[in-house]
């Protein structure tokens, strides 16, 4: 609860700041302070010090899992703001508003991490999405940005429609919106209602849409490509991962309960394979790194779906692991990408010569995404594979996933090849020392998690 209230509250605080303070760069600092505060209160909450004790009437349910995820999300946002805050300022004169929206998005994230009622799910998704429609279109003169936001909005609204239809049908089947249904063997709702299954099917589709799982991913490349890079970074990481957390909860409660009537694993297998296929294969031929990253985020989603496929201990731990690894790496990559004047692969040629630090850290981020050992990314992938293998069946799915991971190496290493083995004159914005330091710190964290994950795991009992 702390996180929800504080994120919303700090957003409002910043609304006031926006017309009290004129100096652009100060907003960034306020945001950083807010995020730190948010992190603190959330950790307090994790350790059982709730500031507000509100009777939520079962609308929300706080699990250590969810709270821990909040910390990850907030921390990632903090890192994100620290690394790319300056670049947000370069984006017109609504700096404060952007930060406000980011805070509201965080509010949505925290709701999604702890919802216990389909209504809250719906609200959370909407609170998450509406600010994003705007952030996507925030570069108003840029037609790409316009197009992206229009597409995103229309498709988002459509998927909302599907989701609502799903919820309605589920309600018809179970007479409640709360996640945990009392399934009596007697009375009207004996067994599994068919309406509920169809409803879940609709819900599955719309959630897949939110987490950009193929074949509901079509918005992702265009939107990520069209949106200003700074916000793409945010969308592609924290928001997407939040979607996964929400989806995971849904799976844990409702889909697990109905799995007697419908083989969700099969459906997920279909979705996973198509996601890996679309994400990896299409990424291979991209010319712009930004768009490649958009597709790669789809591919990564494919791996995260393994968690939803196999709902076990490894899955939930692994999803957290994955969100951390994926968020950190992607934020880092985008932080560098924002600094590049030319975001095609050619633009990166010879970066190792002119900007060794950027190149080296970038390489580490790419390794992490590719799942090379000694980086956080490897352990993340490791957990996903482990989760599936623990379920015992569908080993072939793991093999397929592994093969696609090998394909992913292809496009990730194209960047490395460009940076290290090719010669060129990459144009970058001015790189400050602090930025470099931030990158190095981020890379260090990734390596640390990769080599000694225990420090992260020690948190992970829930």
């Amino acid at each position, binding site marked *: 609860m702390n996180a*929800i209230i504080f994120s*919303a509250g700090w*957003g*409002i605080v910043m*609304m006031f700041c926006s017309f009290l303070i004129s100096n652009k760069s100060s907003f960034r600092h306020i945001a950083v302070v807010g995020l730190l505060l948010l992190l603190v209160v959330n950790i307090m909450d994790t350790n059982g010090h709730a500031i507000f004790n*509100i009777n*939520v*009437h079962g*609308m*929300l349910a706080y699990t250590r899992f969810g709270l821990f995820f909040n910390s990850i999300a907030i921390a990632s946002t903090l890192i994100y703001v620290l690394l790319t805050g300056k670049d947000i300022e370069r984006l*017109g*004169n*609504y700096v404060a*508003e*952007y930060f*406000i*929206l980011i805070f*509201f998005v965080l*509010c*949505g994230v925290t*709701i999604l991490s702890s919802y216990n*009622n389909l*209504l*809250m799910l719906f*609200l959370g998704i*909407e*609170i998450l999405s*509406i*600010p994003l*429609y*705007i952030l996507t*279109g*925030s570069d*108003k*003169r840029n037609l790409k940005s316009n197009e992206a936001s229009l597409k995103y909005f229309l498709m988002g609204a459509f998927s909302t429609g599907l989701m609502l239809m799903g919820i309605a*049908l589920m309600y*018809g*089947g179970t007479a409640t919106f709360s996640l945990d249904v009392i399934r009596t063997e007697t009375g*009207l*709702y004996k067994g599994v*209602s*068919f*309406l509920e*299954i*169809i409803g879940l099917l609709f819900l599955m589709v719309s959630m897949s849409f939110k987490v950009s799982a193929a074949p509901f991913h079509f918005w992702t490349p265009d939107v990520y490509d069209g949106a200003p890079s700074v916000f793409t970074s945010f969308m592609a990481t924290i928001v997407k991962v939040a979607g996964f957390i929400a989806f995971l909860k849904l799976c844990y409660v409702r889909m697990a309960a109905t799995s007697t009537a419908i083989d969700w694993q099969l459906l997920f297998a279909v979705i996973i394979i198509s996601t890996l296929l679309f994400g990896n294969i299409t990424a291979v031929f991209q010319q712009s790194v930004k768009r490649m990253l958009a597709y790669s985020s789809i591919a990564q989603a494919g791996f995260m779906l393994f968690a939803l496929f196999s709902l076990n201990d490894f899955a939930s731990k692994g999803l957290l692991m994955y969100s951390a690894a994926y968020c950190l790496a992607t934020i880092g990559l985008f932080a560098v990408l924002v600094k590049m004047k030319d975001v095609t692969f050619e633009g990166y040629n010879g970066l190792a010569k002119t900007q060794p630090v950027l190149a080296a850290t970038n390489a580490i981020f790419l390794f992490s995404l590719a799942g090379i050992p000694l980086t956080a990314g490897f352990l993340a992938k490791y957990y996903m594979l482990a989760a599936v293998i623990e379920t015992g069946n569908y080993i072939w799915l793991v093999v397929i996933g592994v093969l696609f991971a090998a394909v992913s190496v292809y496009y990730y290493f194209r960047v490395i090849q460009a940076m290290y083995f090719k010669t060129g004159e990459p144009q970058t914005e001015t790189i400050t020392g602090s930025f470099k330091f931030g990158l190095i710190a981020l890379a260090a964290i990734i390596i640390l998690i990769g080599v000694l994950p225990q420090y992260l795991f020690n948190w992970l009992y829930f």
Partner: protein
Amino acid sequence: GRICTGTGFKRKSKSKKRTFLMTATEILFWILSALALFSALMVLVSKNPVHSVLWLIIVFFAISGHYILLNAQFLAIVNLIVYAGAIMVLFLFVIMLMNLNASVEPQKNSLIKLAGVIAGGLLLFVMMEAVINANELTNSQAAMNEGDIGLIENLGKVLFTKYAVPFEISSVLFLSAMVGAVVIGKKE
């Protein structure tokens, strides 16, 4: 009006026997449904956006009518106010603003149209499947114009007790929408 009770089979047999004696509720139900569907279709087919808006408003009215039949007065009113009133007017306003009158919209080629229709039809089929297979519904009724759960009193009570948290949280939604509208709409 008359309160339908008893099992669906009895009802059906009754209605079979004396279809000429439909109750007012049923008559209204059929009329409103027909109206809703027809005008919904008109929304699609009418070339002129303004007309589509007007047809859509009619759909909303029809749906509100259904709410009243289902004895959900509050929602009926809100539907009229929010949708037919605020939202559709907003639409109308925007359309006027851009004066998108008839046939400025380039038509999609018929293939896509066909595909769209087919997709919609298949979706409908899927949902019909749900209805047919959901055996618990075979003899369950929607209680027509009875029960006071739809009244403001009850709803308000629940809204401000059980649903207080979502209610508050939705304010965040509005705030972000507001900020967004400012960011997007305001001229630089």
